[in-house]
């Protein structure tokens, strides 16, 4: 890593061009809209108004929601880790029968999430849900509305957010050196001791990072509390949404968002501190691949198998039922019946047959695709500079690029509207509201921090000497970039692109503010279909949309990760191919990119393996 100063950096035309574009983008879309929003809410006429603070403090509901959000975050940190670590262990560490099948089940959260997932769980465990029906048969005294409130939210979010574990903890586990396990075994350590004292401590940095992500996810949870929380368990994010739509109450929304933002900043600072504490990798160049561990105690073995398959059922049930229900008619859905005789393609014919049926899909696909491509391509250039030059300027820029992580999507959308609903020189005096670009811009903004962290980690894993060697042979900067760096970061870039694409497909929060009315993406349509349930067909339509959505995300995942997921392909992937979050996945790690910090002894040594870094 090059610790060159700002002046040296600015000598490169590549840096200057990228820098100017970046500076404009940061000022125009990250700093100004949000600053503008805060100023407008807290300094409406030039003086500080604390009306919102007073209102919030005196509102019992708001305070309770705040408490609930933090409670949810804390509880999820425990439950998500418990489940997440368990599923990673049974798919990647222990020798469990059918681990591959289990993996596919647990991976269902890759293909659906957010409002769609929450609705799916509710459909099954809710009042008329099929699972509730079954439970009632065994426990007639059960309250049919048992699946609501704190418990339901925690339950759903626990299973919905293990994606990070599947991605990052799996990846880190894959890099644990088999020989350390054997060393421990030869010293008489039991399965449990090895797991607890050797393996988990090695995963500590990535677990910490994932815990923080989980915590933040809990803090800002929107759809699950909205769908399942009921009145007794309300949280902040839905309140922000409620208040931000009304002009008069916007300051309250901004204040709540600030609370979330401050909590996020504190956590990120802690994370950075802890990152400095070090990551653990195999200390040597040669490490042997982890071999699945047999659980020696037969009773424990059976228990773990049973648990693993029980979780499998929890993970897959909603998906399977959503797919099945998408084929039955609306009435059957309403009553929760499921008979194979009643299945037909009518729902699909109705949704796709409507002139407008396919349109939201295409709109969503195009928006998500463009946003994914723009964010990844743009940030490849930016990250390249940020990771090559370390100085106060690049550090500052890097911090600024994290703004979208600190503010909820809703606030960012509002900031954009407020700042660009009139001609503004920053964007060439074009009014952005009412155009199709503004949603795209906000999609791109939202994906910046995640993309940046992952790409940075990926760049850090490229051996510096490769670049030096190429430049000695006379290669120009762009050529090196294209021929040496790009191939090394491409797998990560594709993976990040795919994840971005998928996460934007069913976006609702941003689209509800910014979508062009003629180009409404899927999220709005799905939400509209669930609202009020005026028509019986609406719910059936939602199932069809959900299935199609899962198909799209599934196909995307397959295109990017497909080759490696295919079963029976040799014993293992080749080293240095580890881009898949599924196994090698290291290169895809959001926060936990300890490898990006300069000169860490241990990491520096491992950094010779291409794209194999990061906790």
């Amino acid at each position, binding site marked *: 890593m090059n610790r060159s100063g700002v002046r040296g950096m600015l000598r490169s035309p590549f840096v200057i061009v990228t820098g100017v574009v970046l500076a404009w983008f940061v000022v125009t879309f990250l700093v100004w809209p949000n600053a503008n929003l805060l100023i407008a809410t807290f300094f409406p006429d030039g003086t500080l108004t604390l009306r919102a603070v007073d209102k919030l403090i005196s509102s019992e509901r708001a305070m309770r929601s705040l408490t609930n959000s933090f409670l949810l975050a804390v509880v999820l940190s425990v439950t998500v880790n418990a489940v997440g670590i368990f599923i990673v262990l049974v798919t990647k560490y222990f020798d469990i029968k059918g681990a591959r099948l289990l993996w596919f089940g647990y991976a269902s959260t890759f293909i659906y999430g957010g409002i769609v997932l929450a609705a799916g769980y509710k459909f099954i465990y809710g009042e008329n849900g099929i699972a509730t029906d079954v439970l009632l048969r065994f426990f007639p005294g059960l309250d049919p509305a048992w699946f609501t409130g704190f418990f339901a939210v925690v339950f759903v979010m626990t299973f919905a957010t293990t994606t990070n574990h599947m991605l990052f903890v799996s990846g880190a586990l894959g890099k644990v050196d088999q020989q*350390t396990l*054997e060393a421990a*075994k*030869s*010293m*008489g350590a039991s399965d449990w001791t090895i797991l607890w004292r050797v393996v988990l401590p090695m995963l*500590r940095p990535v677990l910490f990072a994932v815990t923080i992500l989980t915590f933040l996810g809990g803090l800002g949870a929107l759809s699950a509390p909205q769908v399942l929380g009921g009145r007794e368990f309300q949280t902040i994010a839905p309140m922000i949404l409620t208040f931000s739509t009304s002009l008069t109450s916007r300051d309250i929304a901004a204040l709540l968002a600030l609370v979330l933002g401050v909590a996020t900043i504190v956590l990120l600072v802690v994370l950075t501190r802890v990152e400095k504490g070090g990551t653990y990798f195999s*200390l*040597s160049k040669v490490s042997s691949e982890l071999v699945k561990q047999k659980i020696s105690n037969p009773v424990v073995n059976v228990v773990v198998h049973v648990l693993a398959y029980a979780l499998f059922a929890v993970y897959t049930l909603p998906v399977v039922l959503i797919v099945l229900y998408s084929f039955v008619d609306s009435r059957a859905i309403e009553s929760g019946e499921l008979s194979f005789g009643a299945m037909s393609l009518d729902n699909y014919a109705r949704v796709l047959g409507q002139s407008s049926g396919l349109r939201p899909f295409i709109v969503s696909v195009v928006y998500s695709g463009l946003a994914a491509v723009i964010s990844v391509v743009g940030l490849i250039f930016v990250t390249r500079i940020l990771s090559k030059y370390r100085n106060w300027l690049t550090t500052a820029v890097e911090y600024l690029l994290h703004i979208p992580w600190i503010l909820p999507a809703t606030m960012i959308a509002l900031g954009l509207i407020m700042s660009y609903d009139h001609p503004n020189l920053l964007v060439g005096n074009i009014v952005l509201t009412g155009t199709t670009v503004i949603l795209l811009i906000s999609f791109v903004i939202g994906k910046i921090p995640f993309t940046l962290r992952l790409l940075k980690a990926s760049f850090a894993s490229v051996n510096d000497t490769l670049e030096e060697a190429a430049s000695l042979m006379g290669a120009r900067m762009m050529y090196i970039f294209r021929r040496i760096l790009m191939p090394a970061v491409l797998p990560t870039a594709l993976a990040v692109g795919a994840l971005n694409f998928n996460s934007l497909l069913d976006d609702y929060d941003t689209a509800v503010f910014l979508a062009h009315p003629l180009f409404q993406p899927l999220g709005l349509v799905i939400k509209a279909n669930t609202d009020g349930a005026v028509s019986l067909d609406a719910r059936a339509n939602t199932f069809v949309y959900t299935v199609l959505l899962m198909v799209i995300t599934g196909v995307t995942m397959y295109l990017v990760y497909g080759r490696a997921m295919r079963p029976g392909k040799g014993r293992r992937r080749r080293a240095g191919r580890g881009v898949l979050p599924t196994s090698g996945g290291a290169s895809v790690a959001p926060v936990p990119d300890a490898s990006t910090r300069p000169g860490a002894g*241990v990491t520096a040594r491992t950094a010779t393996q291409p794209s194999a870094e990061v906790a």
Partner: protein
Amino acid sequence: MIRYENINVTFGDFVAIPQLDLQVDEGEFFTLLGPSGCGKTTALRTLAGFVQPAAGDVHIDGRPVTRLPSDKRRVGMVFQNYALFPSMNVWENIAFGLKVRKESKAEVDRLVRDIARRVDLSDEQLEKDLAALSGGQQQRVAIARALVLQPKILLLDEPLSNLDAKLRGQLRIQLKELQAQFGITTLYVTHDQDEALTMSDRIAVFNHGRVEQVGTPQEIYDQSATEFVCNFIGDSSRLTPDFVAQVNLGAGSDLPLERSSYLRQEKVGLQPNPALPRSAALDGVVVSRRYHGVHSSYTVSSHGSTVKVMQREDGTVQPRVGDAVTLHVNPANVLQYTPDGVAAATPDVAAAEVTLR
């Protein structure tokens, strides 16, 4: 002490070790030597209990241990990459096994510090993170970690291959000294013949999962039992039948011509050796010369053979490329193998010894 009996190891369809019989004596520094992929590690891991043989038995101290879990075999292992626990500091790494045994706190600390002192790790190094240690220090931690449990056998799998050449040289000596000091039976795996020859009491040369030869370093070198061993160890030239015939002619020996014949580069001279009067003198031309400081390596073309010759740089005038030279060869030093690769007859050691006298 250690006995491999009819061991067969397979991985799926792949036979890593077809049949292994091997005996290691108490207190011995015994080396498994061979090119990489030949099954050395597998043999070692079979002893440690990480690999279950498909057939055969492993005995330690006369007792079969094949079914025993690895921690019950009383073997300590130093892994190729040390396999130190990165999440623990030095002290914790060494203490790990003791803690597993639930030794008292005080006892753990005493034993850890004791072993650390013996492998030359200072008290302050004990508190360090592994990343702060050099490769050599890490290795000592790994050894201390293995030895602190007082194993009967120490297993070392290429412990030096991770290090740079100079350190490797130093550690070779240290390792050997440590072994001598502890007097522990040691099974050492390496692909480096220098390491094997300098450190071992005895060596087993492996090839494709089979033992080609077991013997002292000198036996292995001077009396390579198979063509493979001959090629793998040291530097030798393959001789043409024409060349061998000339040797027979000059020295009055009767080496069979149809066998594969080799000549080690230091066993042929450009000057007659007065200590070896029964040598044959053969004409040749210098094809190339490589200067090494202590010596030079010559390639001499003679009677259809390309013969490598090591010539001490003792200050005398040396021949140059293109010069006609005379090769002095003692037929006793010609190694010969039947077409199936086995040594035809023990080379005429007696004759060599006689001449040495």
